[in-house]
């Protein structure tokens, strides 16, 4: 098993040696008393499909918010493409333009149309006058329509968001993120409330876009099964600590963190946590 993980690691380094996300000993707290994250270390390669799995309250959503600068860590260092994430920093603010973030509630504006929601992803590319008068350039509108087609929402561009189904709303949120021309896509439990078929449709869509655009997709899940199905690597978070980092190689689950756990031990460990 250990050998397997070594092989997989070296094959990754051939694709890209560049780490897009590096987190060292991250501690985070909302009230400076109780820590949500306790000494997290993460290292994510560019172009990977990465998943973070954990129970409710494990700190997995907080981890995503640290990656797009919406939250600051109390201790430790974070580097996103070698830049410290901080919304007030000009360099990082520019970088935020290409970090797609889909919160668990999707964050769509329900009173405007699908197309208008998607075009929001192009806002950083607009001049002040264009954004004041809501004049999106023709090429941006065409790009939005192309993405609409990609997420299978053609013909629904003028629908108001509140008229859409749960699966369709997720497609709009993905389309808005893709409209940003992102290098990183962060999604928080995007399929947790969907039925099995729709969840797989949405995951297929993201996996397809991830490969097509060479994105680094970082997705938070509640369900380990779906994470293992799609992700190159899965970090399991429990009570603010990373307890596992695993992946699937062929038919086997590989432990990347310690390199010495069997598939059965890993699954057993996770199911023990789920029961708690």
């Amino acid at each position: 098993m250990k050998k397997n993980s070594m092989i997989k690691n070296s094959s990754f380094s051939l694709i890209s040696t560049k780490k897009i996300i590096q987190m060292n000993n991250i501690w985070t707290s909302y009230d400076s008393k109780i820590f949500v994250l306790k000494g997290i270390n993460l290292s994510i390669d560019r172009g990977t499909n990465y998943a973070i799995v954990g129970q409710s309250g494990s700190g997995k959503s907080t981890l995503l918010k640290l990656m797009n600068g919406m939250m600051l860590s109390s201790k430790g260092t974070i580097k996103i493409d070698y830049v410290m994430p901080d919304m007030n920093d000009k360099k990082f603010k520019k970088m935020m333009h290409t970090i797609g973030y889909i919160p668990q509630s999707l964050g769509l504006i329900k009173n405007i149309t699908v197309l208008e929601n998607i075009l929001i992803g192009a806002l950083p590319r607009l001049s002040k006058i264009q954004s004041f008068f809501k004049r999106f350039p023709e090429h941006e509108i065409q790009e939005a329509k192309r993405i609409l087609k990609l997420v299978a929402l053609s013909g629904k561009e003028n629908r108001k968001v509140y008229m859409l189904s749960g699966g369709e709303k997720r497609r709009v949120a993905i389309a808005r993120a893709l409209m940003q021309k992102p290098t990183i896509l962060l999604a928080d439990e995007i399929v947790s409330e969907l039925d099995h078929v729709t969840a797989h449709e949405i995951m297929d869509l993201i996996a397809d876009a991830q490969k097509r655009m060479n994105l680094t997709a970082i997705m938070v899940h509640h369900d380990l099964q779906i994470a293992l199905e799609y992700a190159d690597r899965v970090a399991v978070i429990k009570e603010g600590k990373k307890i596992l980092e695993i992946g699937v190689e062929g038919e086997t689950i590989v432990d990347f963190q310690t390199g010495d756990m069997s598939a059965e031990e890993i699954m057993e460990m996770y199911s023990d946590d789920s029961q708690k």
Partner: protein
Amino acid sequence: MTPKNNILIGIIVALLVVASYNVDANPIEFIDGLPNLAIVVEEMLHVEPKYIPTAIWAMFETIQMAFIGTIVGFAISLPLSMLAARNLNSKYVYAPIRALLAAIRTFPSILWAILFVIMVGLGPFAGVLAIIMYTIGFVTKLQYEAIETIDSDPMDAVNSIGVSKWQLIRYVVIPESASHLLSQLLYMFDYNIRQTSILGLVGAGGIGFYIINYIKFFEYGKAAVFMLVVLVTVLIIDWVSVKIRDKYIIKSQHGMEVTTK
């Protein structure tokens, strides 16, 4: 009833008696005055229909004053409310703006009208200015409270793209609070028509000017025509705004498809 409650009720009753004595609020005088009311009502029943066109014209002027006051007041209050909302600004921005708004709200519209009559002279313009000031003070508070209750998720999602504050307001805050803003606009217009109807009391134009003058000269029959026109107009506007609210606001707030049948 606990003894504590009895003491409390006793204190309230005692305060009521003392305050009534202090302000000469005598119920006997009220009963004695009832025949006077009967005389006024009897005279008011002699309605003089030939004044109806004048009354309608005066009411039209009142509606126009209220319309200008509401729209201009609303247009000024919108940027102010963006600056006064706690979820969009630091306290160094919203605290002074809120203090200014609280100061504006201290004066009722009639006091603003007196101030503007002194400033720009008698007539409807003073009334319009008074309505603008009152609308700013009042509607800005309603607006920033509506903005503060916006769902934070769309704000966070769009903020995470790294957009400017102006873009956040234009593309998230305004669309998300649009139904509340429209509802407040309607409410304020409705309210301002009632207010403008009395601004004539201090010479700031509108239908109130006629009412107060006819009452001063004991011409209750003529005053009654104008009062009747105010009553009918207010009822119509109330009915129209209920219809608009039902059709466009209530449904959109509940995330239902808006029909315009």
